[in-house]
C-alpha cells in the first residue's frame, strides 16, 4: 500500500493543479500555505472537499481547516485519526 504521505501529495498536486511539481518537491513538514507551497483560501476549500471525497471526513467549520492544513504531516495524522474510508 502506498504511504499516506505520498498519496496525499499526489492528490494535492492533482486537485490543486500544482503543475510541474512532483510529490518529492513537497516536504512533510513544509507549510502548505503562506511562504511554503503558497496555497490560498480557495485551495483550502478544495482540500476540505478532498478530505470528504477521499477519506470520508466532513469539516463543517472552515476554521478547522487552518489547524489541519498546516503541513502534510499534520494532515496525515488527522486523517489517520478520523478517516471513515
Amino acid at each position, binding site marked *: 500500500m502506498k504511504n499516506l504521505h505520498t498519496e496525499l501529495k499526489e492528490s494535492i498536486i492533482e486537485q*490543486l*493543479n*500544482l*503543475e*510541474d511539481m512532483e510529490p518529492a518537491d513537497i516536504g512533510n513538514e513544509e507549510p502548505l500555505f503562506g511562504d511554503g507551497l503558497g496555497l490560498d483560501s480557495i485551495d483550502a476549500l478544495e482540500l476540505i*472537499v478532498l478530505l470528504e471525497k477521499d477519506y470520508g471526513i466532513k469539516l463543517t467549520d472552515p476554521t478547522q481547516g487552518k489547524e489541519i492544513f498546516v503541513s502534510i504531516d499534520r494532515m496525515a495524522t488527522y486523517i489517520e485519526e478520523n478517516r471513515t474510508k
Partner: protein
Amino acid sequence: MPNQFYIQDWIKIKNGAIFNSEESVFAFSEDELNPFLKAAYDNLKLEYPKFHKMDGLSKLGILASEIIFRKNKATKDTALVFSNNASSLETDRQFQDSTKTFASPSLFVYTLPNIVLGEISIKFKLQSENAFFISENFNAELLQSYTESLLLSEKAPEVLCGWLDLQNGEYDVFLCLVSKEKNIPFSEENLKKIYCAENEKPTH
C-alpha cells in the same frame, strides 16, 4: 471631431495561433485548447504558477494581456473592458458536473465572466475600471462608445478592450490597447476591420 484616441496595439488568439499588429507571436501544431494554452505558456516563459489553476477563459486573457503589456507597460489605471458571447458557460458546465459528486469551489469561482479581469488586474497590478459585457456578436459600437467615454471622462488613461470568447473548446480572442499614442485611429470601423480580418497573416 478629430479622433483623439488610437489603437496602440492589438492581439488575436484563434485556431492555435497568436499574432499581433506586427507579427505572428506563436503558432502551435494543434489548436485543441489545453495543449495549446500549455504550449503558449511555455513559449512565453510566463513562470506564473497560478496560471495552471485558472480556467480556460482566464488563461486566454492572461496570455493575451501578457503579450500586450510586455510591449506596452500597463499603468495602475489601465481599464479593462471585455466582452463575449458565452459568458463563463464553459466553466459553468464543468462546475455543474462537479455538483453531481462534490461541488468544486475552485471551479465555482470561475463561473463569472469578469474573473478574468480580476486575474489580469492581479498579475499587472491594475486598480482600474472593469466591465464585462455579453453580446451575441462582436459589438464594436458598444466597445467603442464605452471605451471612449472612459477615456474622455478621464476615468482611465488607456483601455484594454475587446472580445474574449470560449465555448465548446473553441476560442476567439481579440484585444486592443486604446490610448492617446498615435497609431490606428480608434473607431468602430477600425475595430470591426481588425476583428473581422480572419486570421490575417501579418506582412512585414
